[in-house]
């Protein structure tokens, strides 16, 4: 059984939403925090519904609606998504009011909008979808778990179409807290410099990407998602390389068969060690591309990577903004990413 990527919807710090030339120019933002380029939400979501949606719910909903529009589907057989942080803005608002008002005169809106499954639930509510609906909230595996659930549903024939996606946001509060944990570069001019500065930390990102997956082919499919694999807390670089090699072997794919390897390089010296390693060993003869200078670092960034891989395969070439001299006829892409050296994932995407 194959998993076909029939349509996508992507709200990110780049101009990725809606029909457009793939990454024609790179949006450059100063500092260590990338913000999404957001559409006019009223074009996608009814005004009456929109009032009950915080920013991340709007982002997720609009990305999902755009995906469904492209797929020409009104009601998918399932909706599954991943979010590591959930609805941070509303969580923060409710906490703030709880503290400042000493638990008095609190109102429900921020609370009900703070639950992690709200995005998936709002999508279902908007399109009146009574089918399977699930939300995964496991850090750097949130999106991968949602994809796995989707692929299993398709394999079970419990669904023919699955709307699968992810959403994560940065708020002022979360940026402040994660900065204190040392996640982000203290000094960086802008995202274009991400890989040239060899220092600790990366840049903060956010976004929401959705995919319409199916076990039936269709004329305008982007690509197939051939395989997905995750591994958790590997002991060392050797184990990581072994996992990647074993993954390729299981798929009967050699490094030479891969046209582009998209890596989750994020500019952090420690985190990038493994990427530096594999491009000299396993993938020494492969063309590689990075994506986190486009969307920043966040637990569900692989949704952006999958969108990128699928879009590149659809065009069959890399956009100039991702490097000169694109290989001709790109048919197979491997995505390898890790989040904080804890959550590692591999995705193999091929032309149909």
């Amino acid at each position, binding site marked *: 059984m194959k998993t076909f990527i029939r349509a996508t919807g992507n709200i990110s710090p780049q101009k990725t939403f809606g029909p457009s030339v793939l990454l024609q120019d790179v949006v450059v933002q100063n500092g260590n925090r990338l913000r999404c380029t957001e559409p006019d939400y*009223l074009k996608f979501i009814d*005004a*009456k519904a*929109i*009032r*009950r949606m915080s920013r991340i719910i709007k982002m997720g909903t609009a990305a999902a609606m755009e995906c469904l529009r492209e797929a020409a589907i009104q009601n998918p057989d399932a909706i599954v998504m991943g979010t590591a942080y959930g609805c941070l803005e509303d969580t923060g608002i409710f906490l703030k009011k709880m503290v400042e008002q000493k638990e008095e*005169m*609190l*109102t*429900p*809106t921020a609370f*009900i909008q703070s639950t992690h499954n709200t995005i998936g639930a709002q999508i279902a509510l908007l399109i009146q979808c009574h089918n399977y609906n699930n939300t995964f909230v496991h850090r750097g595996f949130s999106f991968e778990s949602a994809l796995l659930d989707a692929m299993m549903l398709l394999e079970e024939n419990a669904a023919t179409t699955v709307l699968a996606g992810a959403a994560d946001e940065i708020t002022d509060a979360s940026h402040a807290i994660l900065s204190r944990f040392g996640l982000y570069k203290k000094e960086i001019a802008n995202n274009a410099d991400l890989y040239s500065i060899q220092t600790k930390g990366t840049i903060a990102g956010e976004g929401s990407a959705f995919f319409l997956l199916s076990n039936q082919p269709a004329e305008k499919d982007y690509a197939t998602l051939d395989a997905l694999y995750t591994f958790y807390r590997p002991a060392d670089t050797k184990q990581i390389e072994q996992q990647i090699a074993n993954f390729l072997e299981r798929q009967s794919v050699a490094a030479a068969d891969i046209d582009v390897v998209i890596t989750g390089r994020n500019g952090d010296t420690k985190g990038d060690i493994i990427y530096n390693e594999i491009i000299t060993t396993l993938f020494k003869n492969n063309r590689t591309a990075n994506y986190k200078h486009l969307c920043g670092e966040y637990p569900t960034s692989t949704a952006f990577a999958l969108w990128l891989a699928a879009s590149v395969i659809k065009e069959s070439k890399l956009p100039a903004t991702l490097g000169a001299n694109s290989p001709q006829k790109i048919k197979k892409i491997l995505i390898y990413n890790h989040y904080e050296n804890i959550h590692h994932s591999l995705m193999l995407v091929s032309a149909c």
Partner: protein
Amino acid sequence: MDKLMTDLKGQIVERLNLQHIKPEDIGDDQPLFVEGLGLDSIDALELIVLMQQQYNIKLNNAEDGPKVFRSVRTMADYIKSQHAG
């Protein structure tokens, strides 16, 4: 009374995040719930707290809710009746 209703309309739009509506578009007697403005049970809870915070009024009886919140005018009437005397 008119000022109270004008204030209420502004507060309703702001509190309930009714982005697509201007306060002056809400009719004095327009039904707020189900039909008319189409508010729901969560909005009702927000309005109850609004009454408390802005006007220091607690609904005596939860069952009075639908009557009190039927329209901006009924809300204003209730506020005045609680403040009078």
